């Protein structure tokens, strides 16, 4: 489904991604872990097409297309969803209206009929229940005045409604308490299917207790330095990131 080859990206003339290689097959869940500043969020943002990052090398194939050639909204319409680490607030625009507009753009793109307000409301109610969200959240302005946890849940709600093919969750677990995390994980597990794929970007292993990954990758200094199964996450939890850093350090020295 997704194939990243030698992806390099910069922000403000600083190189952050230094050659990422990653393959994500349909029906798979990949976790990307790594210490702060390793480039995890950058990878997520670059895949979604954030304009602050410039891709300097490499390529990304998504469903046989050149993903990097698409505008952010086209990527979204093609089924790439990013759950933001810091969801934005939009004053005066209700959550429901925002979601419906986005969903209908995607449906239009797929050649599906747009949902009218009533149909949409039914879908929204169902998904909000899944995420145990207050009904009032739908009429509140997008993320405005939401707590950190509410914002994250709102992101997953959007994911559940838009039903993407590739969902990228950027540190969705940060700012969530354990109960909220379970709710979010439940929704994500419900979303998982043989027809889609999920990339979970996270610093900690704890979310992976609830969302079991098929593959775990460790990102350090803009590169994937190690890949493995779900046990790699446990190893990281136990030993921390220092050994990875050391290993990467020797690796770099060896290269020099």
């Amino acid at each position, binding site marked *: 489904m997704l194939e990243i080859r030698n992806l390099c990206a910069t922000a403000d003339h600083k190189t952050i991604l230094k050659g990422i290689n990653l393959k994500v097959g349909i029906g798979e869940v990949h976790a990307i872990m790594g210490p702060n500043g390793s480039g995890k969020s950058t990878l997520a943002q670059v895949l*979604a*097409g*954030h*304009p*602050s990052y410039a891709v300097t090398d490499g390529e990304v194939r998504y469903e046989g297309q050149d993903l990097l050639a698409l*505008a*952010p*909204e086209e*990527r*979204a*319409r093609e089924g790439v*969803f*990013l759950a*933001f680490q810091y*969801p*934005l*607030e*939009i*004053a*005066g*625009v209700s959550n429901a*209206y*925002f*979601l419906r*507009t*986005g*969903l209908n*753009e*995607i449906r239009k*793109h797929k050649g599906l009929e747009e949902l009218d307000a009533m149909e949409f409301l039914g879908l929204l109610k169902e998904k909000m229940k899944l995420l145990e969200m207050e009904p009032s959240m739908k009429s509140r*302005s997008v993320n405005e005045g939401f707590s950190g946890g509410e914002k994250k849940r709102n992101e997953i709600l*959007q994911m559940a409604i*838009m039903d993407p093919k590739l969902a990228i969750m950027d540190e969705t677990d940060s700012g969530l308490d354990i109960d909220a995390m379970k709710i979010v994980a439940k929704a994500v597990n419900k979303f998982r299917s043989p027809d889609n794929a999920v990339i979970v970007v996270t610093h900690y292993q704890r979310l992976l207790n609830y969302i079991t990954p098929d593959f775990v990758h460790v990102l350090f200094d803009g590169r994937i330095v190690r890949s493995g199964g779900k046990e790699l996450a446990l190893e990281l939890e136990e030993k921390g990131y220092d050994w990875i850093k050391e290993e990467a350090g020797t690796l770099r020295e060896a290269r020099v």
Partner: protein
Amino acid sequence: MNTAPDTIEALANREYKYGFVTPIESDVIPRGLNEDIIRMISAKKNEPEFMLEWRLRAYRRWLTMEEPKWANLHYSPINYQDIIYYSAPKQKKPLGSLDEVDEELLRTFEKLGIPLEEQKRLAGVAVDAVFDSVSVATTFKEKLLELGIIFCSFSEAVQNHPDLVRKYLGTVVPYSDNYFAALNSAVFSDGSFCYVPKGVRCPMELSTYFRINAMDTGQFERTLIVAEEGSYVSYMEGCTAPIRDTNQLHAAVVELVALERAQIKYSTVQNWYAGDREGRGGIYNFVTKRGKCAGDNSRISWTQVETGSAITWKYPGVILQGNNSIGEFYSVAVTNNYQQADTGTKMIHIGKNTRSTIVSKGISAGHGNNTYRGLVKVLPKAMGARNYTQCDSLLLGDQCGAHTFPYMEVQNSSSSVEHEACTSKISDDQIFYCKQRGLSAENAVSMIVNGFCKEVFKNLPMEFAVEASKLLGISLEGSVG
């Protein structure tokens, strides 16, 4: 983020869809302004002597006044002798009923989305249609009259209800008020008149639709609304004009009088031709609007959506004379391309426990310049007066300007006046977030802008709110990518 200017441009280029001209024969008087012209206008309208005298007094006063220069507006000087002060479509005979309105006029208003045949109208709205200098039709007049509500053109009011006109004309905006009000008082040709008797709640929205058609004419209309004790009326006005590359002057006066416990809601969607992308042409809109909460517990609210005009100079205000009276001002003003707006409100607190709320949303795009200028004045006897002002500006693009000039003059220690303002732009991250959810840039901007204006739109009557929101999208087209 690099906001793609090409999308902005594409959006800005959408046509002004009301820019057509109606080919109709007009009764036009010579260019220029002097006492004879004023006599001529008055004679054409067959006015009683008191009106002519009032006009002449206003004119003489106007001659002694100077055009105000304090506004944050830049425009080439207006040659008042080069304006035609009266232009009326030629009609076969004096208006009796709608059947006698010229076909061409009916078609014009239909094209503007204002069908004048009552059966075609939304049942809840009565319309007075003003074309250049005169009112051409008023709908639902009879139905309203059954309730004692007088809703007619100003000219008819002068003929049929001279006592009411005489009693209230100039009581809120005296002709000496300012340069443009004086000019209007001297030459105004028509407008709407509305009188709601004691205790009556007007069952439908009243509205006036203003249309400038003829070339080189100025439009000087005057609206007077009187709400008697315990009555209620909601009034809306809309305006459009053809596309021309010269500027046309519009100097209107609106006076509202709310007696004890009366409530007047006045909504405007102003969409005069704004000029082209280089700033050529467009309406110069110099308007004096003021309401007087004359009675205790009365309430006047102004809601305006200003998207048109090359120049807007407008400060709808409320004189809060009655104790416990309430004044409100909700405004969205958009300036795109080379439009300039200097607009705001005046809240004059005179009575005890008077309250005022001001919510102003300014949106600047292109080379537009948007100024909020508001006065909150609390006089010494206004014990317990309260004001809250919120005034936000949104900037789209780096060629535009947003300015905030609130004046607070407080002379009473038991009052409180609060002003908050902030200026911001739509963040690139917000746009990216919307795009990530499948929205196009235009859609994202329009959504964010509409969200920004929500507090104002929610005060508009339903059908106006939809119109306003659409209009906002159109006026901002091309301003962000």
